[in-house]
């Protein structure tokens, strides 16, 4: 028993002290029953003392009745809740489990892996910090693995553990594990999950779950529980953008008028100036109560009540923000939705939206596309059925103060409610919008005085500029040998983005050298300086909401790393235009390589100096075998999967 051992070590007072400081980690487990998922959770609960003796006794009784493990205790039976389901041997809903270790308390959302249960997985994912995706080592990566990773990414989970289970059944083979890791890395690169870990394990035997496995000496990493206890999640919180959705107005007596709600993000202090949306009225914070006690400040996740220095009109559903950092107020919203009801979503239908504390009628005006969760390709659709995911446009009767979901997991989320049955039929994540739609909305807004909330004080932030332009800025960094097709790809891409209503700027070596870098030559130092200028320019453009397509040989990994850090890793995508030197020389019609070979030009990459291909680009594009159109399509798919373009 972990508690017992800990008690012996620190005594009851030490234990009580420690317990009060524990952090909470919410975990989602994805995989099918056959992957050994329930066994894994049962194992975590059992080995960390989350299972009591009487439960174990009941479990032993259940094992003989329903179990599939013979004499061994079937940990899976700990997990399956409702009796009828247990008899069918399947789990069909989200079940929550609890356990704790000396360091953390854990809440596990267990969701089924069957094809039709996207809905349940999205439900579990919506509140999780981390997801464990199980893979049966014998079966390798399946369509469901891609689907699970995609839903995790869509719902904004930042930490994923790929648990390669049943290693005992593949003789603990490192080759099997590495092959799975390679295959996963390929598609995970197309999603936006910043932190991914791979752990080989055998849940049934408890190897690399709680304790290290001695059967896999080749695995140098930590066992699962160690990782769960230490993964850093505090940085996932948004402490920048103050958003306080008003849940209730408390008026216990004539002298007190408090606004109660849970801080979605940001920090609120006594004396701060705030703005209430949609009214746009401002006031200063007089008092802050956190869980009923008066405090100086409050942060994300805290249940607060605040009072203000003056009477302004605020009611349930309103949003409190800062005057120089307020979300866009929109009547029209673009969003990804997961459909959760048998009655399909159809454009033209009306629902109720619930976003933060706001409930209002909305009409779905467009179904832009549906995503095939297995291939991650978008396809046109006339309706969205149960467990399907798609992108919609909605118009709301009231303006919604919302942030893009990628920026704010609270204000960017909503549910849709059927007005007849009151059922929750859809879950949505708000996206950034295209300029055309924004223009349309602005037009409407000009008729609607008081909702135009352009900042009055403070500098304009990159986020605000991006919001004004209506696109999420990014830099596509195309690297490759001279004549590998970078510039033609860049130009074709710009054209495609332009046609989709997105603005982008192409930066390439040739044009920059005519102006900005005209003082530079081709020495190693000058080349590095050239790349530096290009990166700074890309950053500047991104900060102004423009997308950048940068086409530079940038031959060394170091130069490209520097570019990444200048631009910012979160908006930098490295694309490798992969063409052999031979192919580049062959397609060269300008005589560039011929002159280099003849010694007329010095310092030519590929000929005189080496080109270091990227080891893990966001995409490796075959610019010899594949057409420009095909490569543009791949880049678009990448941008879509990262929700950079819609």
């Amino acid at each position: 028993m972990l508690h017992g051992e800990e008690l012996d070590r620190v005594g009851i007072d030490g234990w009580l002290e420690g317990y009060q400081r524990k952090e909470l980690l919410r975990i989602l487990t994805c995989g099918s029953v056959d992957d050994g998922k329930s066994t894994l959770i049962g194992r975590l609960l059992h080995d960390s003392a989350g299972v009591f003796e009487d439960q174990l006794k009941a479990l032993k009784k259940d094992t003989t009745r329903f179990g599939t493990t013979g004499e061994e205790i079937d940990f899976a039976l700990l997990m399956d809740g409702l009796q009828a389901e247990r008899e069918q041997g399947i789990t069909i809903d989200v079940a929550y489990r609890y356990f704790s270790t000396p360091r953390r308390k854990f809440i596990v959302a267990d969701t089924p892996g069957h094809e039709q249960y996207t809905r349940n997985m999205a439900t579990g994912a919506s509140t999780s910090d981390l997801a464990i995706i199980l893979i049966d080592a014998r079966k390798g990566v399946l369509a469901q693995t891609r689907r699970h990773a995609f839903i995790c990414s869509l719902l904004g989970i930042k930490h994923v553990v790929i648990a390669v289970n049943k290693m005992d059944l593949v003789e603990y083979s490192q080759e099997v594990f590495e092959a799975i890791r390679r295959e996963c890395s390929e598609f995970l690169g197309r999603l936006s999950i910043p932190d991914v870990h791979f752990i080989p394990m055998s849940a049934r035997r408890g190897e690399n779950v709680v304790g290290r496995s001695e059967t896999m000496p080749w695995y140098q990493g930590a066992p699962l529980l160690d990782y769960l206890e230490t993964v850093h999640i505090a940085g996932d919180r948004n402490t920048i953008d103050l958003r306080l959705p008003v849940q209730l107005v408390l008026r216990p007596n004539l002298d007190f008028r408090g606004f109660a709600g849970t801080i979605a993000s940001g920090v609120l202090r006594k004396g701060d100036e705030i703005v209430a949306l949609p009214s746009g009225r401002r006031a200063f914070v007089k008092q802050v109560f956190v869980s009923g006690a008066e405090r100086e400040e409050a942060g994300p996740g805290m249940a607060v009540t605040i009072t203000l220095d003056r009477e302004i009109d605020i009611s349930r559903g309103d949003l409190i923000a800062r005057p120089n950092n307020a979300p866009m107020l929109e009547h029209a919203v673009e969003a990804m939705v997961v459909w959760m009801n048998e009655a399909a979503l159809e454009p033209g239908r009306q629902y109720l939206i619930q976003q933060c504390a706001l409930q209002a009628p909305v009409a779905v005006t467009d179904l832009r596309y549906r995503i095939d969760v297995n291939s991650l390709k978008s396809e046109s659709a006339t309706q969205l059925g149960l467990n399907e995911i798609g992108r919609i446009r909605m118009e709301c009767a009231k303006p919604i103060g919302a942030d893009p979901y990628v920026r704010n997991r609270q204000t960017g989320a909503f549910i849709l409610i059927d007005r007849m049955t009151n059922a929750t039929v859809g879950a949505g994540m708000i996206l950034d919008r295209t300029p055309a739609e924004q223009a349309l909305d602005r037009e409407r807004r000009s008729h609607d005085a008081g909702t135009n909330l352009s900042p009055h004080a403070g500098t304009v932030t990159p986020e605000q500029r991006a919001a004004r332009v209506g696109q999420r800025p990014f830099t596509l960094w195309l690297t490759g040998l001279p004549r590998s097709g970078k510039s033609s790809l860049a130009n074709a891409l710009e054209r495609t983005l332009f046609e989709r209503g997105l603005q982008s700027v192409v930066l390439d070596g040739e044009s920059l050298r005519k102006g900005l870098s005209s003082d530079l030559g081709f020495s190693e130092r000058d080349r590095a300086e050239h790349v530096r200028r290009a990166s700074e320019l890309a950053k500047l453009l991104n900060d102004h909401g423009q997308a950048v397509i940068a086409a530079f040989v940038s031959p060394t990994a170091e130069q490209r790393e520097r570019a990444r850090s200048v631009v910012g890793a979160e908006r930098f995508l490295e694309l490798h235009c992969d063409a052999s030197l031979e192919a580049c020389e062959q397609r060269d019609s300008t005589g560039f390589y011929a002159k280099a070979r003849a010694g007329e030009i010095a310092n030519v990459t590929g000929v005189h100096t080496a080109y270091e291909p990227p080891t893990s680009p966001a995409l490796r594009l075959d610019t010899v075998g594949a057409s420009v159109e095909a490569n543009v399509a791949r880049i678009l798919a990448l941008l879509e999967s990262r929700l950079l373009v819609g």
Partner: protein
Amino acid sequence: MTTLHLSHLEQLEAESIQIIREVVAQFEKPVMLFSIGKDSLAMLRLAEKAFAPGKLPFPLMHVNTTFKFKEMISFRDEFVKARGHTLIEWINQEGVKAGITPFNAGTQRYTHVMKTEALKQALSHYGFDAAFGGARRDEEKSRAKERVFSFRDRFHTWDPKNQRPELWNLYNGRVAKGESIRVFPLSNWTELDVWLYVYKEQIPVVPLYFAKPRPVVNRNGTWIMRDDDRMPLEPGEVPEMRSVRFRTLGCYPLTGAVDSQASNLREVLEEMLRSRTSERQGRVIDYDEAGSMEQKKKEGYF
């Protein structure tokens, strides 16, 4: 910046407060079930915090089976008075008239009439559209899948197949006339969390949770306290004084005591941390069959 960091207990507290406020915002006539146990007391403290510095915007209701421990009732009356809350007590008078007791009716029928039916009568009588309960998901397997907002039809029954998905912290509380919800603000708390909260917040609890010599008899391996002489003794059975405490509180004939010397909260916590059995073991009512809780819930039990 340390004041901006939430420990797990503070996070659970904040989430529960959000749930309680959401119910008050979305429903017309909520009520908080008050069973006098530690979970109820923790839930009540959360509600007080949710509306501080104001008072609770809803009453408390105790469904009394008439077989509760005497100490529970005296604690209840003093506590509620001291805190200035409004309490409704409901007893199923039909059950009382029919003379139903745990001894003559059998556990299942007694529970059904005096708890489940009584609760439904009370909710219908007052027209409450939302009732807070202190149940937790870690209590029992079928609870693990329970929603925070648990929907009941006009007959107060629960259909496990027809519950709404709950995403993020968005709770859809829309109901048709006559329909209601049961709300579980402590869904994500464990027994240990509740005790820790009681400890941290210094919430007074019924002294039955602490060990003291009490008159008990052994029935089927469980120590039952003879709280009054309505409980018939078996031939030759003589109550003995043992130092016992209760891990859960309910109807005294259905609540098992455990041998213990832990006479204060710190000692109870230490004993519990070293314990190897879960708390529901002391409850006679859902010990009989793996799916029994699910069956009771379908009939309208909490």
